[in-house]
């Protein structure tokens, strides 16, 4: 009996160790590229091409970077330039590269969105604040939240008040809250396109020269070598670009996350 118990234990340990995977690359990425399914589609191709298992988890950029710092993730995809720069200064061994870019949209209830046509982003935000229209903020240290704060700062407004709903959650859930509470939300385009059939919010046709609303994503391999560096090289190489393009076309019929 004793022997059998030992055998079972040994087996359990082996299975657990195998499940934890020696060569598995753990990818932590902003919820904007995970909630919409883009990153899963891209890494699936990498897995098929190389046989290296990849696991993708979504989180706000602040947590993604913290995971990279603590060794909880091997490969990071983030979209908050200021936080990324700080991370790279602290970790000179890390390698990084821009991988693709989408853009931010302001979406809201149709009647009210019509009232913001032609305004620039800070102007639109200022109008929302003045009128006390509901605005849903991620408030979670994500790249999207950083962008919200940047636009509020340009508008010269410190957002506060009962019209501001703060979810502290990912892009998908926050968008649902905005929809059901008839509020505005700054949303990353790909996530919005996936959710669009189920929500009644529409994009504000604001005066957008593309500079302020650009949403560049950076991939970081904190260790600077090994499987994570291989993935980074693949993603920025011709095969990766082809995979990103194909994933875009399959999901949206056009390029939303432009490599």
């Amino acid at each position, binding site marked *: 009996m004793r022997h059998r118990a030992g055998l079972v234990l040994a087996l359990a340990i082996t299975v657990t160790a195998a499940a934890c995977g020696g060569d598995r690359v753990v990818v932590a990425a902003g919820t904007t590229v995970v909630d919409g399914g883009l990153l899963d589609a891209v890494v699936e191709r990498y897995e098929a091409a190389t046989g290296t298992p990849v696991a993708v988890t979504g989180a*706000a950029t602040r947590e993604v970077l913290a995971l990279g710092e603590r060794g909880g993730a091997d490969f990071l995809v983030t979209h908050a330039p200021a936080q990324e720069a700080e991370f790279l200064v602290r970790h000179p061994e890390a390698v990084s590269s821009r991988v693709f870019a989408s853009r931010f949209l302001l979406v809201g209830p149709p009647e009210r969105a019509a009232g913001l046509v032609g305004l620039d982003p800070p102007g639109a935000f200022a109008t929302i604040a003045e009128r006390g229209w509901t605005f849903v903020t991620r408030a*979670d*240290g994500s790249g999207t939240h950083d962008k919200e704060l940047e636009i509020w700062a340009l508008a010269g407004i410190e957002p506060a008040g009962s019209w501001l*709903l703060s*979810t*502290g*959650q990912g892009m998908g859930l926050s968008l*649902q809250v905005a929809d*059901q509470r008839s509020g505005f939300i700054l949303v990353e385009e790909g996530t919005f396109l996936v959710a669009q059939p189920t929500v009644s919010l529409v994009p504000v046709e604001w005066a957008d020269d593309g500079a302020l609303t650009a949403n560049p994503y950076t991939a970081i391999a904190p260790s600077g070598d090994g499987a994570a560096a291989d993935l980074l090289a693949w993603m920025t190489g011709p095969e990766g670009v082809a995979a990103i393009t194909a994933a875009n076309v399959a999901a949206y019929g056009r390029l939303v996350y432009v490599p």
Partner: protein
Amino acid sequence: MEFLWDVIRDAVAALGDFGPELREVLWLTIVVSGLATVIGVVTGVPVGLGLGLGRFRGRKVALTIVNAGMGIPPVLAGLVLLVVLWDDGPLGGLDALFTPGAMVAAQALLAFPIAAGVTAAAVANLGFDAREHIAALGLSRTGTAAVSAREVWPGIVGATAAAFGRVVSEVGAVLIVGGNIRGETRVLTTAIVEEARQARFGAAVGLGVLLLVLALVVSTVLTATQLRRADG
């Protein structure tokens, strides 16, 4: 190890500066889970008494459903309510989604089968003597149920404690139908998820400790009630 100490230090600091926002979160947690437990118990205990005492067709099926309901995943309860309360859903007109009311409803759905199931088990376990004794009183069905409920009072208190413990600790349902909106629908469990997601582990652990203390206080009060009745 240093990481762990950092987390513990931050947790103590987070609890130390117990601000108005944390008070609000704690208060909403007590109100939402408390109300849900009350609703679950008030509706579930009579159903449990009926299932435990009654002899009717379909009793076995009903008991099976209630027992299965005790294990319903909170995210599923939340999902069902999300679909029902969605703007275009059957009860969309209530505008209840992402409000505390929806959170109470979701948790009451979870509390009900626990209250009913534990009560049914308690009365079903009444000894033959006790049953004979109650039957000899020659009461109406409602009267019999009331006397039986008195007999199994510790079991009903236990059902209440189990229901509260279940709902106060769940996160799936309240996150889906509540949305974790600051100052409106944020409770301890959803706040923990948020803090952990943002790598503020100390604050998350602090909230976790608070949740444990809350569960412990409620359990202490209920256990005292249980013992008093059982001893007296």
